[in-house]
């Protein structure tokens, strides 16, 4: 793909984007291209710079260095009202003195659209977010979920090139949050608007994103599809942040083609299947997801990739069972999904064999 085709396809480009607040580096040299119609997530713990990055795209924060391009045009120094972006704020920032209809109409009124057009577009947008009939209510008379929808409609009505969402679901309860995830995703695909969604909730990102950007300490840690991010994290941070991971520190003992054997610090060896042929450092950690560990009462026939531990406690979780297992000096979390071939009736202080398939072992730099 040549360079020109690239720039026309990308709705947003961040080049060396950096933001410094006094002594702290909030965003550190972020480079990112966001494709047209893409649903992109900025994911990371609080203070990782994801919101600041979003605010720099929207023009609410000026970058200390680097460039923001929207539709191929550098917009550094362009005030928010002149940018083709619209934001849904964390606490929604609805105008308390305006009705639902007035809130949604605000952007169009500022753009001096004719009255009939405003009325029609407001109606269509409220229909899209399923709020018809609440036009005359004030924000104080709405539930959290309804406020969320108004904020979404208010941003969408101006037909922005890029929709920016700053943790819009964090103030909702779990049930509503799950429901809104599907609705936002449906609307985003329906109108095919390029969307950047900031969240610290990894399940939200995994469920909704086309692509996830994992951020850590102001830098991009990894970019990839939800599947890639979950199954092939490139760092201990990503692996730990996305889902749950057990870490076994160790040293590289042998390399056999696309597999390696790691001698664990707590005793035992694990064979791991590598996804590529890249060189491997000597000091590593092996990451294993809790649901990838199979528990046995008796030593399994395979003999390889089996560790010995002791059950500390068992928690019934409904569809699964969670185990805390002592292995050497560390505690391993195991999630048993049940099913054929899995043993049951575990109790604490029982000796146990942990079987881990080589493809479930993820070798990461220590």
């Amino acid at each position: 793909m040549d360079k020109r085709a690239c720039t026309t396809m990308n709705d947003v480009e961040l080049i060396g984007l950096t933001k410094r607040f006094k002594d702290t580096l909030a965003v550190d040299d972020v480079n990112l291209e966001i494709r047209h119609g893409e649903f992109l997530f900025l994911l990371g713990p609080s203070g990782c710079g994801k919101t600041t990055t979003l605010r720099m795209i929207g023009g609410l924060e000026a970058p200390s260095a680097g460039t923001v391009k929207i539709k191929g045009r550098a917009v550094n120094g362009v005030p928010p009202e002149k940018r083709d972006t619209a934001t849904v704020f964390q606490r929604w920032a609805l105008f308390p003195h305006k009705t639902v209809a007035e809130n949604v109409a605000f952007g169009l009124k500022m753009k001096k659209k004719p009255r009939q057009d405003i009325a029609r577009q407001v109606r269509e947008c409220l229909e899209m977010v399923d709020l018809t009939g609440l036009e005359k209510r004030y924000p104080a008379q709405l539930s959290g979920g309804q406020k969320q929808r108004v904020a979404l409609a208010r941003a969408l009505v101006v037909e922005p090139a890029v929709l920016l969402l700053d943790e819009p679901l964090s103030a909702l309860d779990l049930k509503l949050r799950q429901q809104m995830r599907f609705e936002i995703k449906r609307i985003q695909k329906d109108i095919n608007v390029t969307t950047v969604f900031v969240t610290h909730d990894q399940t939200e990102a995994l469920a909704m994103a086309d692509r996830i950007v994992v951020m850590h300490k102001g830098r991009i840690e990894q970019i990839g599809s939800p599947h890639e991010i979950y199954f092939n994290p490139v760092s201990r941070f990503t692996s730990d942040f996305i889902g749950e991971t057990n870490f076994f520190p160790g040293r590289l003992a042998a390399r056999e083609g696309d597999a390696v054997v790691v001698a664990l610090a707590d005793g035992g060896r694990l064979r791991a299947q590598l996804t590529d042929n890249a060189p491997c450092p000597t000091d590593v950690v092996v990451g294993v997801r809790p649901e990838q560990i199979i528990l046995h009462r008796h030593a399994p026939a395979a003999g390889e990739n089996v560790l010995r531990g002791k059950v500390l406690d068992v928690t019934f979780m409904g569809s699964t069972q969670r185990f805390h297992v002592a292995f050497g000096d560390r505690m391993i979390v195991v999630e048993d999904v049940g099913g054929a071939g899995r043993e049951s009736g575990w109790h604490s202080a029982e000796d146990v064999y942990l079987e881990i398939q080589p493809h479930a072992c993820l070798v990461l730099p220590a």
Partner: protein
Amino acid sequence: MTGDVKGAAVPAVNHHPALIMRVKQIFAAHKFLWIFLPAVLMALIFFFIPIFSLLRISFYENVGMGVYQPAMRLDGYIKFLTDPFYLRVIFFTLKIAVLVTSISLVAGYPVAYYVARAEGAKKIICLLLIIVPLWTNLIVRIYGWFVILGQKGMLNTLLLNIGFIDQPLSMIFQPLSVVIGLLDMVFPWVLLIMISVMEGIDWSLIEAARDLGASRFQSFYEVTFKLSIPGFAVGGLFAFVWSMGEYAVPSLLGSSAQRTISIEVADQILTVLNWPFGASIAFTLFMISVSVLFISNRLTQKSADYMLR
């Protein structure tokens, strides 16, 4: 809150058996109502009873030399509201009150905006600068204005010395000095009221407005200004009612030719000894203030609606 209790306590005075029963029932059912009793008694003894006796006396007939007898006359009201001399007094008082109110709102808004958005030490210093003058006694502050505005006061001396004027200006015992004195009195309170309202504005709303295409000015008008209207209403009401009823400032800093309603009340009761007429004037003043309160309440009803959360 007081509505409940007032309704409960006042009819009890009528010795209406059914009502007393009802009141007893209410108090038995809601024991917490007793905690309002001291406040209700205070309001009753120091506010409702005096106002009620004032209203009663205002209809009485004046015999002279401080003596009056029960009657049902509107003489005082008619005289006060039709006589050109008293109409001028009413008009002058209204003019002063409107002037003080407008100046304190217009001048106070930017200051309140600045203090509401300030943070840390800057904010504390600003608030102290507003509050500290209130620690000084009002009469002391009024005499302070004599020192500044008098014929041989600081301001005249300064202007004469720099050659800006060659005759001392008469700045004291003028409507101007009354306005200045009233501003000195109400301005800090108006500021504090407006600051507290503006501190309640969520500044992320401005970002939201800008983000949706509003210019700097539009976002100020649509969000900050419209949301500070309750501050204007309460601050303005406060300034207006206080300026209307203030006695010390106009009587010390004003001229005897331009009298205000409260000076007239004091004069009738203390000097002329015509209690019924003084009471009529006082009650008229009271009613003006109540109607302004009522109107301002109605005007800000909408904001009260959305503020309820």
